[in-house]
């Protein structure tokens, strides 16, 4: 049995522990052995702990952990040890989860490839010459390579969904306000959200249940805990008995235009066909302001970054501001400029208005009386599969455009999930499912039925 321990999903792990098939000590040792062998190749972890009990989870190194170093992937925080745990960490510890390590990321969660880490860049387990995506690069690699039972990441413009797509795992960005961000080092406060990265959709649902709910420390998180109906968990039934009858699925035409790789497009179209075979009604919709998403995002996000990163002054914690990496500096500069006197109206205020239009696009698509009345929206997560390490590092704009399909949902605050739906050029492709604000249940239901009617999740990378 011990040989297979690390390939089990979180739910399977919990069941096996209950049945006494192995002990928590054996579980942790199995994962630690695998980390020892594979982390030197993959650079998934920046810090490895040595837990002997609990269910081993990998935590993105921007989420603070008491007495364990938290670097945010930055040189500035190379020696930072938080005096407290993030709320999500406290909630996981209460569930008997152990922290097996802190995972690599683009510095302060800024990047789409993992290469902005101030430490060694993480690598894609499906092909070590490829990027894993970012910014939750290490968390996703850890799950894809079976180095942890599950992981937590953060998603500001796609940082959970995009690497999950590129590495073939499940990544869920909950609705803005579903999970408390207390203890997540802030990047862009109107967008940041913590979410699960898991081996299966059912696992993602369980982890969201564990980490969701208000704590009184994040005033945008007033939601109650996600309390799934026990009849739904793990059954994939959705009240429509393993079919998707009565489900209306919107396919935005703007997500299939110029820039979408043909191989990815084919895989996504087949996945949509599968949803139709399972009983869903597919309708083409329009999200007309999609093409402005990246421009809005880079103003709003950079402005919030410039404000949030002002706290790194080298007085209370961390090193001096000269230690920021190139991307952090670039975004601080762009944000400071767009907020500066004389430019605010042209940039920040303008972007905030176009953000309203992007949000209204989604409201329209979901509205049954005035709009398309969709239950969910599906499309690609990333316009391409994983690209070569180094390929886009000198062209920031090209890198930014790779987030064109994940950014709009972040701007609108709605939930989104990436689930494995096939391969192109031997690399994983993720299907993005977007839902109504605070309706994670429906996207999880659909994702779960899709997962149980396909075999993509059973494919594992052979790491070499």
């Amino acid at each position: 049995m011990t040989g297979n321990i690390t390939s089990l999903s979180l739910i399977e792990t919990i069941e096996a522990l209950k049945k006494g098939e192995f002990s928590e000590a054996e579980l942790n040792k199995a994962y630690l052995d695998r980390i020892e062998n594979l982390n030197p190749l993959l650079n998934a972890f920046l810090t490895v702990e040595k837990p002997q009990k609990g269910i081993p989870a990998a935590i993105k190194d921007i989420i603070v952990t008491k007495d364990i170093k938290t670097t945010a992937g930055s040189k500035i925080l190379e020696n930072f040890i938080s005096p407290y745990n993030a709320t999500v960490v406290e909630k996981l510890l209460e569930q008997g989860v152990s922290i097996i390590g802190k995972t690599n990321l683009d510095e302060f969660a800024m990047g789409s490839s993992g290469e902005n880490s101030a430490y060694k860049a993480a690598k894609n387990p499906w092909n070590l010459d490829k990027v894993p995506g970012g910014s939750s690069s290490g968390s996703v690699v850890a799950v894809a390579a079976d180095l942890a039972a599950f992981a937590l990441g953060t998603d500001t413009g796609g940082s959970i969904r995009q690497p999950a797509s590129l590495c073939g795992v499940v990544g869920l960005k909950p609705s803005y306000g579903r999970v408390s961000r207390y203890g997540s080092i802030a990047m862009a406060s109107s967008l940041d959200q913590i979410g699960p990265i898991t081996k299966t959709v059912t696992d993602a649902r369980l982890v969201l249940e564990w980490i969701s709910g208000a704590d009184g420390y994040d005033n945008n998180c007033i939601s109650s805990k996600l309390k799934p109906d026990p009849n739904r968990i793990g059954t994939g039934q959705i009240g429509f008995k393993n079919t998707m009858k009565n489900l209306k699925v919107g396919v935005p035409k703007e997500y299939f235009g110029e820039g979408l790789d043909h191989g990815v497009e084919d895989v996504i179209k087949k996945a949509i066909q599968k949803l139709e075979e399972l009983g869903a009604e597919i309708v083409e919709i329009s999200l007309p302001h999609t093409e402005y998403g990246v421009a809005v995002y880079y103003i709003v996000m950079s402005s919030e970054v410039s404000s949030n990163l002002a706290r790194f002054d080298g007085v209370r914690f961390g090193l001096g501001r000269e230690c920021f990496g190139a991307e952090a500096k670039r975004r601080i500069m762009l944000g400071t400029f767009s907020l500066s006197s004389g430019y605010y109206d042209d940039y920040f205020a303008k972007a905030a208005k176009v953000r309203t239009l992007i949000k209204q696009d989604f409201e329209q698509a979901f509205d049954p009386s005035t709009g398309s009345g969709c239950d969910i929206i599906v499309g690609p997560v990333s316009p391409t599969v994983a690209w070569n390490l180094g390929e886009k590092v000198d062209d920031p704009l090209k890198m930014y455009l790779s987030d064109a399909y994940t950014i709009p949902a972040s701007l609108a605050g709605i939930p989104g999930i990436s689930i494995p739906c096939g391969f192109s050029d031997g690399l994983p492709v993720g299907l993005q499912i977007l839902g109504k604000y605070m309706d994670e249940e429906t996207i999880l239901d659909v994702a779960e039925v899709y997962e149980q009617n396909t075999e993509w999740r059973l494919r594992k990378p052979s790491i070499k």
Partner: protein
Amino acid sequence: MSITLTQVQKVAKLANLPLKDHELEKYSSQLNKILDYIDKLNQVETSGVEPTFNVTNLNNVFREDVPGKSLSQEEALKNAPLKDKGFFMTKGVFEE
């Protein structure tokens, strides 16, 4: 819209970022490229559109004014590079 080297220097000062000359040059060229792209927002008609700063539309979330658990002085100072007698130490504000 384009941004000049002098403006980039001013922005770096506002952002309290100590940038080297070659960085200032690099960022002026990169920021210009990014701002060119962002100019596409001007194609969008936004008169009469309210801005969105926060999707939750929450305002003034209050709590009871009761003291709760907080960090000890020792914990709060633990990560400070320079400290003295229970205080953070920093450069003098009025010195150049």
